[in-house]
Structure formats: structure tokens, C-alpha cells
């Protein structure tokens, strides 16, 4: 019984520890948002590593960085920088956009 409890506790502690991918340093991707467009609008990152988008909104109104496949959204106020942290991703193409402006699109390629 004691051994079972100890094993269960070890498993629980193991689950709380960051996984190797979480412990890895995030790949930073810098984007600017100006005149209703992302610059650059095509970016890439390595697979199985967390990603951190740093989005600088140079426009005079707020934008919302959003992506269905990345499963994130964040409002970035005018003249500020927003940081959006994304889990380690599998290879593929992930689209992002400004939810307030249908014309502002971009894509992340993970390989």
C-alpha cells in the first residue's frame, strides 16, 4: 500500500514537472503591425519548440492577434507590444490574422 502511494506521488510530481519541450527556450518571432498589415507576414520556426510571438502594433488603433490553429488570441493596443506564447508545435502551416481586420493575414511554417 505504502509503495503504491509512493509510486502515485512520484507520478504526480513527474506530471507537474515541465516536459522537455516546455523546459526548452522559446523561439522568438518578431512581427510589426503597420497600416493594417503584418510585417513579415510569412515566418518560420522549428518543430517541437515553444514559440513566443512579439507583436508590435504601430497603428493608431488596437488590433487582435488571433489564430484558430495556434489557439491563441490577444488584443494589442495601439503603439504597444503584445507577447503571445504558443506551445511546441508539430510541423505544418499555421495561419494568423487580425480579428479586427479581415485583410491582415500571415502564416507560420513549422518544420
Amino acid at each position, binding site marked *: 500500500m505504502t509503495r503504491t502511494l509512493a509510486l502515485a506521488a512520484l507520478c504526480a510530481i513527474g506530471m507537474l514537472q515541465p516536459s522537455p519541450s516546455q523546459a526548452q527556450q522559446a523561439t522568438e518571432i518578431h512581427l510589426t503591425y503597420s497600416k493594417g498589415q503584418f510585417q513579415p507576414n510569412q515566418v518560420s520556426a522549428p518543430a517541437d519548440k515553444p514559440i513566443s510571438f512579439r507583436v508590435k502594433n504601430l497603428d493608431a488603433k488596437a488590433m487582435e492577434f*488571433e*489564430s*484558430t*490553429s*495556434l*489557439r*491563441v*488570441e*490577444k488584443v494589442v493596443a495601439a503603439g504597444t507590444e503584445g507577447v503571445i506564447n*504558443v*506551445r511546441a*508545435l*508539430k*510541423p*505544418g*502551416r*499555421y*495561419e494568423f*490574422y487580425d*480579428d*479586427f481586420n*479581415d485583410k491582415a493575414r500571415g502564416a507560420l511554417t513549422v518544420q
Partner: protein
Amino acid sequence: MRVARQSERRRAIALCAAACVSLLGCGAARADDASSWREIETKYIFGFTTGSGIGLEGEKEFTIDTIGRFGKRDGSYNATETKYEFEFTPTQFIQIEFGALGSTHNISGVTGLTDRDQVALAGAFAEFRYLAIERTSNNPLSVTLGVEPTVRRIDETSGEGVRNFEFETTVNADLELMKNRLFVGFNLLYEPEVTQPVIGETQREATFGGSAALSLRIVSNVVIGGEVWYLRHYDAANLTAFTGDAVMLGPSLFVQFTPKMFMTAAWNTQVWGREVGNTLPLNLAEFQRHRAKLKFAWEF
């Protein structure tokens, strides 16, 4: 009387067909746009079938979700249950929902049920969903596991005052068959519950079943589809005392009005069913003749 009903039904079918054709025509005209459409959140595009989507980290949503159940073997039976729901996604893998339940019951002349006309605060619920398999551009399949404990003070079917505890567990899967356009969804459902009436013995029961749904995005903000459900009912939580089953079939509609507001609607009709110990067609003891769903959501 029967002839009049048949002609009414034919007229309704013709109207639905005309609407579908015009919607499809509209979609065909814009078929070349599909690659430029934004990706769609699949959770609400299949009607009663729930898609695997869990929302976006940081997203919050308020929804009003009403399910109506209509028709028993005899008399008049109309009941609704509405979820007033707050939904949020704290991580990129987990979604949490909770809220209150309101119900209405309008029953008269139904064998085994007391006549009533009531509106009530029926209970509360919470839902936890975990994205187990995520869709990528290289993998069209996505799977989410969900549990939804619910407490009710009003019986869902009869409208009587009770203490009811339900624990719905689901597997919600969907597959993107054509990029941004065609999706197929599957649900597996196991819903044990225990009910303590004011008078009488505690009742234990369970519903077990599954569904398949096909949804076509005809324009960037409109999805139409159809779904079929097979449901089995037991008078025991461990699925040992089978009492009947039913097949429900019907269309679904999803409309995204603005990036932050959408609605979903669905209609299911029981097309086949059986009750243990009853030779009459359909299962109208545990299930209803028709059910409808109407949901409005606002994201913020």
C-alpha cells in the same frame, strides 16, 4: 386530416430543399474563395453533435443555448432547457464552461406525466474539455474529451421537483475532409444519472450512444449539415438494464454573424425507435419525437 398533414409536410420539405439549393448555389458561386477563408472553429458546426474545438487561449464567451423537446406518445408535450453559460479557454489544451439552467414545461394529457405549465430555474452545470489530438495542416483529425457534471432541481422530462445528478462524458472527434470546407464529426456519449424524487425511490439510469455528422461550409460564415444520433437508454448506470433505443436524424445550421458573434441551430426527428415491452413504433418513453437546438454566442 392525414392528407392535410402530408401536404403540409411535403410543403415544408420543398421549402427546405429550395433553401438548401439556394444556399448551395450561393456557395458554388464563391467556391474559389475557400482557400482564402479563415480556419473555422469546429465545436458548434455539427448541430447536437459537438465538434472538437476548444476555443482560443484568452477567449471568453457568453452563450444562451436552448434545447427544446417536443412530442410524446399522446397528449401535448413541449419542454425546453436553456443553458446560460460562461465559457473560457485558460490554456491551449483545456476549455472550461459553467452556468445556470432554466427550464420550461408545457405538458397536457401525456400518459405517465402530470399536466403542468411552468418556468423554473432548473439547476447548474460545469464542463471541462481536454484536447487530446490536435489538428494540424498534416493531420485532419482532432479529438477532445469532455466531462459535464450537472445538478438539477427540476426533472428534465416531467418538470417535477427532484434532486438529479448527471455526469455526462463525451468523446468529440472531427475530421477535415476538404480544407476549410467539408467536415465530418463523431460523438460518443455516456451519461449516467441519479434522480431522487420527492416521493418514491431513487432512480438510476444512463444514456449511451453516438452520432455522426457531416457539415459543409457553403460561404465563409455559413455552414450547413446533417447528423444522425443513435441513443440507448438503461435503468442502471452500468448499462445492464436496457429499456429502449432510438435513432434521431436532422439538419444543422451555423452562422457567424460577426467575428465575435455566431448562432447554431439544429433539428432532430426520431425516425426509428423501440421500447422494451412495447410493440408500438418509436421510443417516446425515454426520448422525444422531435428536438431542436438554438444557440447564440458572444465572444469578448
